[in-house]
């Protein structure tokens, strides 16, 4: 064999190896509930087809202020105490999300969800297959006592433990909500507020909701909507009274808890 042939052989081999490396990502349907689900697919090409006989539902979690979409980092909102305020961050936990069906059965959709304003994927559940038409939905803002203990979610995904733990020094467990932004205080100074809620002094402070769903055949979209101003309106909650950080204040936690009844609404279409 002569040398140039060998060099050629080498090149050929290295190219043939390289090609695998640069090969196009496989396109296909990536939704596991679809009938044409392709487990090798790396990019969803929108080709998913679903079995029409199965009932399915999407759930979107939306956040509003006085029925308007939230503009983050904008000091334009006003609450019942007439605090001018902005929102920079909104993280919250919804646990025990359960769908109840016309046939009287129910299923727990998730033990808990970690919802984050900076992660759109955390705000929707798509294509949940259901056995019958829904009659109602129930869920808890935060965790009920039995589902909330130190290190309970230590190994969970999305960095949940580090981002949401509620220190042992305050009783342990996990935050229910982190709402952060700025407000104009009584001296006209712009200040940060950290409205962080969770269990304190033996009070659970979580809140369970149940909503009837009236929807007719063919509807598959549920919206679970939160209105931020409802956290502060009844009884009136003034950031000037409760201070910038409220994790250690039973009074503040109770004031928020007493406001929770009408924070959520559920609609379908």
């Amino acid at each position, binding site marked *: 064999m002569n040398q140039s042939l060998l060099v050629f052989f080498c090149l050929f081999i290295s190219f043939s190896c390289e090609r695998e490396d640069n090969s196009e990502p496989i396109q296909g349907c990536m939704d596991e509930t679809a009938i044409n689900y392709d487990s090798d697919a790396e990019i969803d090409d929108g080709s998913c087809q679903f079995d029409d006989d199965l009932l399915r539902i999407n759930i979107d979690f939306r956040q509003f202020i006085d029925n308007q979409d939230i503009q983050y980092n904008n000091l334009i909102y006003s609450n019942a105490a007439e605090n001018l305020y902005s929102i920079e961050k909104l993280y919250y936990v919804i646990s025990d999300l359960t769908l109840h069906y016309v046939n009287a059965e129910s299923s727990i959709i998730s033990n808990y969800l970690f919802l984050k304003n900076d992660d759109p994927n955390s705000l929707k559940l798509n294509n949940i297959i259901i056995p019958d038409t829904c009659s109602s939905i129930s869920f808890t803002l935060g965790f009920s006592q039995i589902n909330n203990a130190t290190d309970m979610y230590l190994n969970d995904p999305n960095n949940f433990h580090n*981002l949401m733990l509620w220190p042992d020094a305050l009783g342990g467990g996990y935050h229910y909500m982190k709402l952060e932004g700025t407000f104009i205080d009584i001296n006209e100074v712009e200040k940060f507020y950290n409205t962080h809620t969770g269990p304190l002094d033996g009070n659970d402070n979580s809140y369970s909701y149940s909503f009837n769903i009236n929807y007719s055949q063919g509807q598959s979209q549920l919206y679970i909507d939160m209105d931020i101003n409802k956290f502060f309106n009844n009884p009136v909650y003034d950031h000037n009274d409760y201070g910038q950080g409220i994790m250690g204040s039973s009074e503040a936690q109770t004031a928020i808890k007493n406001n929770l009844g009408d924070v959520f609404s559920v609609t379908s279409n």
Partner: protein
Amino acid sequence: MKIFFVVIMIFFFSCEKQDDGFLYAPCEDDDCIIYETTPYPTPSPYGFPFMIIPDDNPLTIEGVSLGKKLFFDPILSSDNSISCATCHIQNNSFSDPGQFSIGITGESGFRNASSLVNLGWSSSFNWDGTAENLREQVFEPVVNPIEMANNWDQVEYDLNFNSEYRDLFKRAFNIDYIDSVHVAKAIAQFERTLVSANSRYDKWLRGEVMFTEEELDGYNIFNTERGDCFHCHSGKNFMDDSFHNNGLDETFTDFGLYNVTRNDGDKGLFKTPTLRNIEYSAPYMHDGRLSTIDEVIEHYNSGGIYSATIDPLMKYVNSNPYGIDGQSGLMLTQQEKNNLKAFLLTLSDNDFIQNNEFQP
């Protein structure tokens, strides 16, 4: 015949790189040796989350020990003058006591060398998060012109020239040609074993010692709104694996996370550093600007400096428009500051900086 052998070698190596993990031993049937590796137990200290180890790089006794040898060997630098351990010194919790580390050219960088502790529980590396995993991180210092200033062809050449390394890589990974990927894999294995979990704080958690009144108050300051350190320095490793602007500057010379994301809201954000072994890892902050723990506490007690991206958790920020001079900051008393420091000192793990398993 010789040339033909080389061709075969090239053939195997060029394919090998894509097959992380599965490796050819280009030998004749009868002299083929395939080594068995010995699993290295996954570190699982009391109360810690599981350490996630990549499937294609399990910890082995052979891999860890090879990684250690590489970590301490100046062979990785272009003029054989510095090793990883030159800037990451065990006595300093594998950080550099100098504000900026000096590379082979005598030139210094612009960031303080991070301490290397409990890295196996982290999911981004470097102050600005440029590396997503430990293996990727190794590629940076070796070629950085003001650190080891080498190139990988040279590293591979030098290591393959060395029969001891050829043997060790063969034993750890069953490879006959040493490549950059396996250098990085070995070092990453060693780094995962740099575990600190025997500080006074850990002993307190395990019920082996009692905190003093000062330490206990410091723990409470740290973990409540009094000091509010825990939101960022959270979890078992006192870092939330995320990025924040903790109010060091009004304007930035180093943009931190923005360098990676190019998102304006990330200007001046840096990775929350662990506070484990903080006593040993001075100076502090990404640019080593603060030399003592007292100065750090004073920084937070003052409330920090306002800028557009400061974290809302720095809620008592002291300069306009977010505060009134003299009425902002944490407003801790001298005693409270001492107590907070006493707590931070409970995070020192003397066994870690003396552990001879980490020595060459």
